[in-house]
């Protein structure tokens, strides 16, 4: 690295991302990805999910290792609490997507990050899932994300990072906009 360059390093290889963007602009077929997960019921409300392979850049891809996730409901629902609740995975998905985005955009904008911490609160009236009141939806009422970010940047520059990250986030989009879901039974 040349001595004149500021050594902003958030651990994100922005050049690789920009190169991929350029390559996929020329060959948009490669941009078609398919993300996959499998799930197996254990007992009660406990299930065990696995992610391993996915499709992208025109071929089958694989994670470096297989990742597994236990999901269950808390004990107050008379469950055994062997894992996070599925709705908590939604919060985890949202915040990890936004956080990754902030790091990448900060790197691209040459902003050195020192720490990103986030707290999430998803409000839910469980009268919906319990079928008590059909006017209450099953899903979250509101989701509130609060970031504490320490970086070499002005308050507005940090706000702009967080805003841009929302604009480019897959999970943010998946939650804020409708998605057609097809569920089949073999």
């Amino acid at each position, binding site marked *: 690295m040349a001595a004149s360059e500021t050594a902003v390093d958030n651990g994100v290889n922005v050049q690789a991302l920009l190169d991929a963007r350029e390559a996929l602009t020329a060959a948009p077929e490669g941009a078609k990805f398919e993300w996959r997960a499998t799930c197996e019921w254990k007992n009660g409300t406990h299930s065990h999910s696995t992610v391993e392979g996915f499709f992208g850049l025109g071929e089958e891809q694989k994670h470096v290792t297989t990742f597994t996730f236990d999901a269950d409901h808390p004990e107050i629902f008379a469950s055994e609490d062997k894992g996070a609740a599925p709705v908590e995975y939604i919060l985890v998905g949202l915040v990890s997507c936004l956080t990754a985005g902030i790091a990448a955009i900060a790197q691209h904008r040459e902003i050195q990050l020192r720490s990103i911490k986030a707290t999430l609160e998803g409000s839910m009236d469980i009268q919906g899932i319990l079928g008590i009141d059909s006017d209450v939806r099953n899903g979250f009422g*509101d989701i509130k994300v609060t970031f504490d970010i320490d970086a070499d940047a002005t308050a507005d520059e940090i*706000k*702009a990072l967080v*805003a*841009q990250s929302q604009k480019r986030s897959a999970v943010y989009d998946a939650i*804020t*906009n409708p998605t057609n879901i097809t569920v089949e039974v073999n």
Partner: protein
Amino acid sequence: MSRCLAERSIDHVVLERGEVANTWKTERWASLRLLTPNWQSRLPGFGYQGDDPDGYRTMPEVIAFIDRYAKVISAPVRAHTTVTSVSRSDAGYLVATDRGDWHARTVVLATGACNIARVPALAEAVPSAVTTLTPVQYRNPDQLEEGGVLVVGASATGTQLADEIHRSGRPVTLAVGEHIRAPRVYRGRDLEWWMDAAGVLDERYDEVDDIVRARKVPSLQLTGSSERATLDLNALTGIGVKLVGRLAGINEGKAQFSGSLRNLCALSDLKMGRLLDTIDEWATDNGLDGEVEAPHRLPPTEVEESPPLGMDLTSGEIRTIVWATGFRPDYSWLDVPVLDRKGQLRHDGGVVESPGMYLMGIQFLRRRKSALIDGAGDDARDLSDHLASYLDGQVATTDH
């Protein structure tokens, strides 16, 4: 362009399907005013000479202005001549019209960026009891049934129509996607004055980071009124317009709005802040701080705690939907393979990939101001230069 070609004694004709200023005459709503102040419409050898330089032209005034320019420069206009196709020929191009064919060594496409109103695919799912229309069809609020109106899109067109329709007594819900907020007047001067003076409008297409993105930036939320009022989302909320997120889907007669409203407003507030920062820095650097009003910032865009995520379009509450979702050019008559997979013309600053073909009057063609009347002059000077060299055989066909 005609004026620049004439200056170089390049023989040409201007083909016009209707009359001079046809789009302004036939495809715009009655109350529309130019977004740029009178002084700013500077065409080669022609400018504003009236006594209201800070005013905004009404449609009849825009039409008269363009008409007069055509006469002053004696533009060789063939009115009521519709081009039916443009294709390559041995000598250059064959331009077929409903009044005979033209053979031309070069062609300048000046049909503009706003020929067809964009309507999203989900429009097909709108219940039949709801009337839909585009800004091209819209003339005034009296055209609409009494009752609620959903305006989709919050750029210049959407905000102006939302304001006018709501004031007519038809309660408006405004679905807000990406938008660019801007004060009409800042520190006592028109925003366009600042952007012109500070060189923002002269920024070149080959100097910006990402020209593809820059060409897609929505129009500023500006309106031309005698009060020089700012027409942002807060102004609309102030008169009772209800803001909802981007229209994301229509499912079984129910409109679904995106939960992204708060972020889109934050993005826009931050972007406006950066523009005003640029203006303030320029004002200080150029010693204007004592001359103009002090810097200030606009209050953040107000978004209610939990904006509605859905709306029943079958309940009768909404009688009309107005698609203010942008415009696109019509190249259906262009039989030269210069369009990309998204239907956009491939060009480098108006020099189209097909030798001897040029493009004018689209967003950020060569400069940020390219789509403004005020941007036509500089672009026409540059492109007529290139065109003249091409005719002289001095431009290699691959040299853009």
